């Protein structure tokens, strides 16, 4: 299991479009992937879960990946966050 943290860099936070990107990427991996905020645990493969994290810019989230491709999955998701989902940061 991989457990790390990611930070929301893009200005508008994890709104609809970045949430969709995140879900798309997460769905490519067989591992279970979770994001954690304030002890609240959501499945990164559910756009509704991701959106209801209501994660604004600057907010820090826990990231957990567990499964056969957990390293690749965690890396891919970390990159998405650090690139600000390709948006203005």
């Amino acid at each position: 299991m991989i457990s790390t943290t990611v930070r929301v860099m893009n200005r508008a936070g994890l709104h609809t479009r970045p949430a969709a990107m995140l879900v798309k990427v997460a769905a490519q991996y067989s591992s279970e992937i979770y994001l954690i905020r304030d002890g609240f645990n959501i499945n990164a493969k559910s756009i509704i879960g991701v959106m209801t994290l209501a994660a604004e810019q600057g907010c820090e989230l826990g990231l957990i990946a567990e499964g056969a491709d957990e390293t690749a999955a965690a890396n891919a998701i970390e990159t998405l966050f650090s690139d600000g989902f390709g948006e203005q940061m």
Partner: protein
Amino acid sequence: MTDAFVPYGLRILKGIPASPGIAIGRAFVLSSDSPSLQPDVLTLEEVPVELERFRIAQEATTVELMNAIELARLESSTVSSILESYLMIASDPIMTNAIMGRITTGTPAETAVLSEFDIHKTVLYNARDPLLRERVQDFEHVMERMIAALRNRTLSHEQAIDSVVVSGSITPQDMLFFKQLRTLGYVTEIGGINSHSCILARDFGIPAVIGLRNATEMIQTDMTVIVDGYAGLLIVEPDQATLAEYTSKQKQAAEYRDRLGSLVGEPTVTRDGVEIVLKANIDSPDQVDAAIMSGCEGIGLVRTEMLLVQKGRYPSVAEQTSWYRDIVERAYPLPVTFRAFDVGSDKFREGIPHHEENPALGLRGIRFLLYRPDIFENQISAILRASAHRNVRLMIPMVSTLEELDEAKLLIEKCKEKLRAEGADFDPAMAIGVMIETPAAALMADAIAPRVDFLSIGTNDLAQYTLATDRTNELVADIFDAMHPAVLRLITMTVNAAHNAGITASVCGEMAGHSAATEMLVGIGITELSVSPPLLLELKHRIRSAIYTDCQVLVKRMAKCSTTTEVYAVLGGPL
């Protein structure tokens, strides 16, 4: 919804202007029969039927969305990605399981869908970030579609052909379908000015007014309506005179575009010979060329905070210098006015120590720059370095006390000293001005004016702070009006103070682009107007048709007005 004013006995409703232009036509009202919860419980035999009904509805919703995505790919890439996220919401595995779980335990499909979406909507409603709160709409759009599909009812977009669509809210996919049907305009009850649909309306050039409360109840299909996307007005069942007036406005708008091109090289002068300096507001270096081609006489406002938004951080002196120089060199020999970073926690949060309950009244503009002199000094140094051609001016935003101005000037002198020591080339006499956008600054303009080289009035913020109204809030948008006599008095005070001190007062807010407001501003004694490049030629045309002495008479009559309604009556109708 209150009728904002009734100059001709018609019904004029005031909302938020979301996309400019004028539309005249029949209304098509999309009433969303608001889905309500059914209290009944399913019997055991009904459960599989209900599950199947949900499955079919979900499929119908996703198919509809996929069709819309196809359409979107042809029209706009931003929309297609938004619709893709809708598709994900509609087919979200967790949501689907939860809804099916509810149905299995005896909840009817509609209720199951509504309750599940409600849970998630509530979470978003409570988000601290207003941008995320606006996303509640995305959930609502998907939910409405799913409910409609459950009731076996799909929207017949065809009815909207050649009409003005009036609706609670409009989804981006509706927007695409309506565009195909040559929809004339949009009117909605809710919606933020930055919602996906409003951005689309502007992209498509379709006039829109949003935030018109109860619009779907007050307006019926086939009523004649006029959408004035410039002023944010909806005129219901206009009389012949108003109809004629707007028809000619609409025709003029089309003719303008053809004719205006010939004005580029002409001077901006009233018919009786008063010269007005026309400048352009820009956000980036690549807008300079377009502004110059439209015949501006300078850049009246560079919103430097756009550089921050672009970079997502505070750029180094070198980065800033090259951005500023790029603008200055493209504009040379025309003058360029840089406004120091006008940030607040609503726009750019970095550097602001903690969450503010009320960013509009918080650490913003000059307050922030003095709180972080390191950031401010970097910017001043970069602007000074770009001033070697002697065509640069610096403007300080959001001043509310004289001390702020004095402190800012000290910092500017300190930066000049440093540059001198380095032997850098800069303009030691670079003009410094103050943005008048708080009532305090306008009331103290006579004390500010002698200490600076120019004043510039930001009408939007001045109106917002004077009227204590957030103009993007649909609940109070009908109060926001830069033509309120209180705002006009503050503008007049500022202009008089500038004249007494022998400096210029300019207007660089949205009001400068309002049609009837132009004559008023000229009559008050404004000699410099700055607007976005697409408005330049229209403004020039208007000034060239105006007579200064008539403008003065107009202002004298307006000085006697005590309500916004009276001001509009003097101006001869809504802007």
